[in-house]
């Protein structure tokens, strides 16, 4: 479970996140939806422990900066940040060793799943952005985290990888994990989500739970444009 409680992140006088609170439960896929500059990446980075902030963030009830919380968190950054001279396989090996994960063959499974097996000997600097993103996802899943946060994960991926990633979201959910995805691409989230928080100017402007098609309820797309275009 991921709990964000009254989180405010300021850059000088500008509040990138303004008193944000939300919870994503186990076996839930949460979406942070919003236009560029809404504060989605800032809260994702705060959850990952990269930024200072006011407020509380907990991973399964543990403060997110504690080592035990880091063990239970998987983070996929918006821009893949690989090591130039490590191969795909070595990236996963490094993460396995850094997170102290026993070698049970998960590395090969992830490489197969994301069609990286034939690229295992390619170095980070030789990969396209989409390939780097796949490696980044594999690294985040390597230690079997119970909470996984994705920052704009679809950017740069080919259609097959997007399809595979959506299956991964579903599998993580089925395995009882907590998944949080930030995105501005409304057409990519379809209906696999459980809860969507629409963000605008650092705040949550609306929250929608997935109850299937409800007569008379606005579509997610209509709600999104009503909020974002109404503010502009």
């Amino acid at each position, binding site marked *: 479970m991921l709990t964000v409680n009254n989180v405010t992140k300021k850059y000088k006088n500008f509040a990138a996140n303004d008193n944000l609170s939300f919870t994503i439960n186990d076996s839930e896929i949460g979406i942070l939806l919003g236009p560029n500059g809404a504060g989605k990446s800032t809260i994702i980075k705060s959850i*990952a422990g*990269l930024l200072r902030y006011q407020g509380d963030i907990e991973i399964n009830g543990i403060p997110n900066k504690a080592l035990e919380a880091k063990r239970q968190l998987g*983070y996929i950054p918006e821009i893949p940040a690989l090591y130039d001279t*490590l191969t795909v396989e070595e990236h996963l*090996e490094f993460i396995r060793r850094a997170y*102290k994960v026993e070698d049970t063959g998960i590395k090969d499974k992830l490489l197969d799943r994301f069609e990286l097996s034939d690229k295992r000997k390619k170095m980070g600097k030789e990969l396209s952005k989409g390939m780097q993103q796949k490696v980044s996802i594999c690294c985040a899943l390597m230690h079997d985290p119970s909470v996984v946060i994705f920052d704009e994960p679809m950017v740069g991926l080919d259609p097959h990888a997007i399809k595979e990633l959506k299956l991964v979201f579903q599998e993580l959910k089925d395995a009882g994990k907590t998944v949080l995805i930030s995105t501005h691409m409304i057409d990519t989230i379809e209906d696999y989500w459980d809860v969507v928080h629409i963000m605008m100017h650092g705040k949550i402007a609306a929250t929608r739970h997935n109850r299937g098609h409800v007569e008379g309820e606005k579509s997610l797309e209509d709600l999104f444009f009503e909020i974002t275009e109404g503010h502009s």
Partner: protein
Amino acid sequence: MNNATAYRFLHSLRRRMLPMVLVLLGVAGGGYAVLSLDRIRITFHAPDTEAMLGLFSILSLICFDYAFAVGFRSGVLGYSLSDVVYCFAGPFGKKHNLFLSFTSGGASALFFLWLICANSPLMTMWIGARTIDVIGFLIGAFFTVLITFLGSSYLSARFCDNTKAKVIAVVSLLASNLILGLLVLKDLIGVFGSFEQVKQQDPALIVRLIGNSFYTDIFPIAGWDQIVYKEIVRGGIGIRSIIVIALYIIILLGIILLYIRSDFDFYEHAYDNASRIADIIEASKAGVEAVNTGIARTAKVGKEVYKRGWGATAFFHMHLFENIRASKIFFINKVALVYRVFALLLLLIADGMLEEIWDVLLVIVGIATMLVLNAIVFGGSKTVLEFNRPYIYTVPEKSGRKLMMCIFSDIPEMLFDALICLLIIKLVAREPFGPLAMISFLIMMVIFDLLSETAGILCAKLLRKFGKFALMGVRYVLIVFLIIIGMLPAEIFTNLVTGAAADNIDIILCVMIASMAGVYFLLWLAVLSLTRVVFERTDANDIL
């Protein structure tokens, strides 16, 4: 089209006022150093015109090698990504684009001339070089740098697809240097009888013989440029000068003609290079010295296997593995090695200026020189790039341990570098630098390198948002300050033991260096603790 390029160039200058001011101050400082030579009254050696002309020829050879390396390495391929987007894809001709990259590469090629200007007072103190002499040298050397840079840039663009041709060019350069060195050495041994005898001679005499040797004078381009000034000083321009001037004009016109008539496709390679340059620019924003950023370029996947480390130590083994992959001789920092050549040259000049009884002073000058150079090499180490990736933050290990493991992965480089520094100082200072002093020197250098690297990381964490010039400027001031702090207690301890061991210079030097090591170790622990706190309590880099 040219107006658009001029607009972009001038606009980018306006946005870089601080670097521009620093560059102008640097140029003015170099100019002032040369113009004030005639007022210097301190001399360590009787003025020696022939030694001065010899030194000019040797410096000219170094300028030639440096300009060749700069031109061949980046030369006309030194485009930024915005050059690629706006000029290659825009309505600009190939020739316009070919000349565009000279602005960055050309400036780098001229850097060495500025370095000589800034250090020209040493030449005056040693062998009595006057302002007019240095200006005479600079005019000749400028044409050498110009021709060599244009020539090697052309070769690198012309043969960008042809590895064999590029290897032949580099091997030819190295072979010509080696052959010249061997021929000159043969002459010296012929004059003095043996290599041991050559080593015993006054450095000014050796410089005079090397620089004025027949072989140096006929060395292509670099050997010719000083012939004109040599003949002026020796009493009038002769036929050799006329031939040299004619040759220079012909070669320069030939190269310009080659460029004008060139019709080779260098865009793809320039584009490939632009990505690397973008990486270097990004690395420099993080605080990595440009000299340390070329290392990953040569890496190729071989038979090496990454299979060590657990938890925080995975960082240590991973970085060590990266270094091994980048080079089989991973413990050699190639850039530091180039700096050592420059340090050796400086120390040899200092050795020439000082009497033998001042060899102890040479040890101290040597240590100070090595410390300052290492502040550049290790202060701007590539370790700071770790902060551009999320893993140093997200891996569930204590931040101090992760940080230390990253820093420790550079220890093999530091050890080898300390060994090279030791050999250089021993070569120059000889007797006073005894075994005890040498051991303490090795330890002190490694500790100082750790301190420099940690201080560099601290500055990168705190000052990244203020821009790379502020970051690098503050970093050097901080490290120089740390060097001085380390030297103050050294003086006290040295004074304490001087009475008890006045006749054993090895012990005195050992105590002095060991006390420096002790202070640097304490400073390193303090800076490491501070960095750990800053690391935990500040935001990650905005690149993430």
